[in-house]
C-alpha cells in the first residue's frame, strides 16, 4: 500500500465518521429537546381543556345552587306547581341561554323523576334512573354534584343541586347544563386550538332521544362516535379518524399532518358520573413552528459539520501531502538519480522542508557529492 494513496484517505474517512457521529449525537439531543417542547405543549393543552371543563362545571353548579336556594322555587317545587315554576324561571333560563350558553335547565323530583325541562317544557314525568346516575346520586346523597352527562336533550356539563322545601325536607333537585360547543369556540378564540366534540353513538341514541334528528346522522358518524361540534372539521378530519376514537377512555396524543402542516393532537375523554367514557374532546395545535425550527437546526448542523469536515480534510491533505509525501517523493527522485550521471539540481523548496526532511535532503546531498567526487 502506498502511504500517499492510503493514509490521507484513511484519515479523512475517520474524520468524516467522527464528525458524522458527533452530528448524529447532536441531532439526537436536539430532537429530544424538540420532543420535550412538544410534550409540554400537549400537557398544556390537557391542562387547558381540563381546567375549562372543570370551570364550566363549577359555573353550572353555582347556577344550580343559586336557584335551589330561591324560596319561591322551593315553594313551587314542593307544591309541584309546574306552570308557576315555569313562569318563575323561564326568563332566567332564556337570559342565561342567550348570554352564557346555558343549554339545559331541569327540575327533578326525588328520587329521579323529571319535573320540568325549561328547554322543553312539554317533556316531563320521565324516570331518569337509567341514564342519569348523577341525578340519582344527588337525590340519594342530598349533596350537590357536577359532571358530564348525556341528557334527553343532549350532552352537556351539568351542575346539580338538591332542593329542600321550606321545612328543610329534601324534595328534589335542579340542574343546569352548559353547552360544550360554545366552550370549544371560546377555547379556539383564546388559544388558537382546533377542537372537536365526539359523543359515543350508543348512549347518544339511547338517552338523547330529544336531540334534533340531523345530529345523529350518517354524515356525523366517526367510528363509534358522533361528531357534535367542531371548530374546523376540514382540518380535524385529517387529524382524527374512527380508529383513533375506537378506544377513548384514557387521554392519548399523537402528531399528524393536515394540509402538510404537523399538528399535535390530544384526545381527552369525557367521563360520566360513573366514570364511563361517553365521548371525547379532540384538541389539535399547530406544531409547524417547532418542527420547522427543528428541521432548520438539523440542516444547519449538517452544513456546519460538512464545512468542519472540509476544514479538517484540508488540514490532513495539505499537511500530509504537501509537507510530507510530496517532499519525500522529490527527495526519493533525487536519490534515484544518484549514480545515473544526471544529478538533480537542488530544489528551491528545501528551505520549506521540515527538520526531518532537511536531514534527509542533506544526506542525499552528501552522498551525491561523494559519488561525484569518486566518479571524477
Amino acid at each position, binding site marked *: 500500500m502506498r502511504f500517499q494513496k492510503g493514509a490521507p484517505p484513511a484519515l479523512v474517512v475517520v474524520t468524516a465518521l467522527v464528525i458524522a457521529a458527533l452530528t448524529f449525537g447532536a441531532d439526537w439531543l436536539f430532537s429530544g429537546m424538540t420532543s420535550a417542547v412538544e410534550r409540554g405543549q400537549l400537557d398544556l393543552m390537557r391542562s387547558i381543556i381540563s381546567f375549562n371543563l372543570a370551570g364550566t362545571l363549577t359555573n353550572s353548579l353555582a347556577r344550580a345552587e343559586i336557584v335551589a336556594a330561591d324560596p319561591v322555587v322551593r315553594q313551587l317545587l314542593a307544591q309541584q306547581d309546574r306552570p308557576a315554576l315555569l313562569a318563575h324561571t323561564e*326568563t332566567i333560563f332564556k337570559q342565561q341561554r342567550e348570554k352564557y350558553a346555558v343549554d339545559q335547565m331541569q327540575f327533578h323530583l326525588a328520587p329521579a323523576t323529571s319535573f320540568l325541562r325549561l328547554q322543553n317544557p312539554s317533556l316531563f314525568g320521565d324516570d331518569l334512573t337509567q341514564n342519569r346516575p348523577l341525578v340519582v346520586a344527588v337525590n340519594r346523597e342530598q349533596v350537590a354534584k357536577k359532571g358530564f352527562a348525556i341528557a334527553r336533550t343532549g350532552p352537556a356539563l351539568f351542575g346539580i343541586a338538591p332542593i329542600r322545601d321550606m321545612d328543610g325536607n329534601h324534595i328534589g333537585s335542579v340542574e343546569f347544563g352548559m353547552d360544550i360547543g360554545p366552550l370549544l369556540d371560546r377555547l379556539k*378564540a383564546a388559544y388558537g386550538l382546533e377542537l372537536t366534540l365526539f359523543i359515543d353513538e350508543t348512549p347518544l341514541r339511547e338517552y338523547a332521544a330529544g336531540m334534533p334528528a340531523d345530529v345523529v346522522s350518517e354524515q356525523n358518524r366517526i367510528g363509534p362516535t358522533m361528531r357534535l361540534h367542531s371548530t374546523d372539521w376540514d382540518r380535524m378530519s385529517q387529524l382524527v379518524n374512527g380508529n383513533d376514537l375506537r378506544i377513548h377512555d384514557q387521554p392519548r396524543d399523537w402528531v399528524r399532518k393536515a394540509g402538510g402542516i404537523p399538528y399535535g393532537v390530544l384526545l381527552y375523554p369525557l367521563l360520566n358520573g360513573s366514570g364511563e367514557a361517553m365521548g371525547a374532546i379532540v384538541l389539535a395545535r399547530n406544531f409547524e413552528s417547532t418542527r420547522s425550527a427543528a428541521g*432548520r437546526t438539523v440542516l444547519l448542523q449538517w452544513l456546519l459539520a*460538512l464545512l468542519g469536515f472540509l476544514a479538517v480534510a484540508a488540514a490532513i491533505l495539505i499537511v500530509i501531502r504537501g509537507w510530507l509525501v*510530496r517532499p519525500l517523493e522529490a527527495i526519493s527522485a533525487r536519490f534515484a538519480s544518484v549514480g545515473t550521471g544526471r544529478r538533480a539540481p537542488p530544489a528551491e523548496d528545501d528551505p*520549506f522542508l521540515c527538520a526531518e526532511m532537511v536531514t534527509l535532503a542533506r544526506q542525499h546531498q552528501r552522498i551525491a557529492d561523494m559519488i561525484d567526487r569518486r566518479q571524477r
Partner: protein
Amino acid sequence: MRQLFVLSLVMLLAALPAHAQAPLPAAQTPLPVQVPLPERAPSASAARTPVPEPRSLKVPPPLTEQFNDRSTTSATVAAQPPALPTAAVAAQPPALSTAQSPAPAPSTAALAVRAPRALTELPLESGLPLWVRAGLAFVEVETIDENKETFTATVDMRLSWLDQRLRYPAAEAPIGYREWRNEAVAPQLAAMWTPKVGFANLRGEPTRESRSLRRYPDGRVELLRRVAGSFSSQLDVQRFPFDRQQLQVELVSQDDTADKVNLDYRQDDLLFSRADPGIKIDGWTAGAVTLTRDPLAGWYGERYARMRVALEVDRQALATMPSLFLPLLASLLIPLLATWLNHAKNGEFEIKPFELTNIIIGGLFAVIALNFTVNSERSILASGTNTVSLLFGLNYLALGTALVINVCLFRFNFVRGLAGRHVQHETFLFITWALPIATAATALALILIAAA
C-alpha cells in the same frame, strides 16, 4: 310654569341618592316589557309603545316625548318614563316637590339610565359588552401584489347581534325573518343601532359594495356586506419560495370600545368564514380561513375589538423555481469556473491570473445585474432575510473567495512563499473539489431550510 315644574321634578328625581331609588322586592317588580316593532321602518318612535298602566299612577307620556313637546305635561309624577317599572316609580318619596331645595342640573348619565333609549343607541338589554358575532368569507381573490403587500379581493362580511328591542311576533315573518337588500338597507340601518365595524386594512374605497339586512323575530339582526377592494396585508417572504402567506382582512369596531362592543365568533361563523372553492390565484393555492381576536389599543388604556380573518395561501414553489433560482444557482458556477479552469503542475499555475480574474469580474457584474433585476421585479425580496437574498449573498461570497484565490494563490503565490510549492500544489488541488462542494452544499441547505 308647568313646563318648568316638570323639568325641575325630573332634575330632582335624577339627583336622588341611590338608596332612594332602590328597587322594591322582586314580587312587586313587573316582568320586562317586550317592545313590539312596526312591520316596516323601525324608528325611535317604536320605543313609545304603551306599557301597562301602573296601579296607582296615571300613565305619563314618555320622557322623550315630553322633552320634544313641552305642551304635554302632567301634574303628578309625569316625568317618569313609561318603561320604568311601577315599583321604581312607587319608590320615589312622596314629599318631592318644587318647594324643596333648588334642583341641581341632572347629569347626562342619570338621564340616560332613566330615559328610554332610542333604537339608534347601543342596546343594553343583554348587558355589556354587546357581543357582535362576525364572520368573513372570501368570495374571490383576484391578485396578490407582493411588492405593495396588497391583495385585491371580494369578501362577504357577516355581522350578527341581538337587539331585544327589535323583537316582533314570529307570525309576521312567514319565512323566518325580514330581509332588505341594497338601497333598502340604508333607511333600516339609519333607524336602528348597528355596530360600526369597518375594514381596517382596506386601501381606499371599495370598488363594489352591496348589503343585505335580516331581522329575526327574536331580535337577532344579521348584516351582510359584500365588498370588493384592495386590502393591505403584510407578507413574510423569509421562506420564499416555500412560504405560506396569510391574506388578512381586519375587522375593527370603530366607535365603541371593547367594553361596550366586542367581536366574537361561534361555530356557524366559522362555517361561514371560508374561501370559495373556486378561488384560483395565479401562482398560489388557497387554503383555510382562520379567525383571530386581537384587540386594538386605543387612547387612555382603552381597547377596541378587532378580528383578523386570514386566508392561508401557499406559494406554488415549482412555478417560481425555474425563473428565479436557476439563474441564481447558475451564477454560482462562475467563481467555480475561475478556479477549475486553472491547472497546476508541481505547484506552478499554467493560466495567467488576469484571464481568470476577468471571468470573476464578469461574473460579479452578472450577479449585480441579476440582483437589480430581481429587486426591481420583486422588491419585497430586497429587504429582509430570505432564501433569495441569502443565495445572492452566497454568490457574492463565492465570487469574493474566487477573487482572493486568484490574487493570493495564482497571482502572488502567497502559499508558495509561505510553505513552498508542494503545499501550494496540494492547496490548489484541495480547493478544486472542496470549494464546489462547500458552495453547492450551502446553496442546497439554504433552499432546504426554506422548505423545512
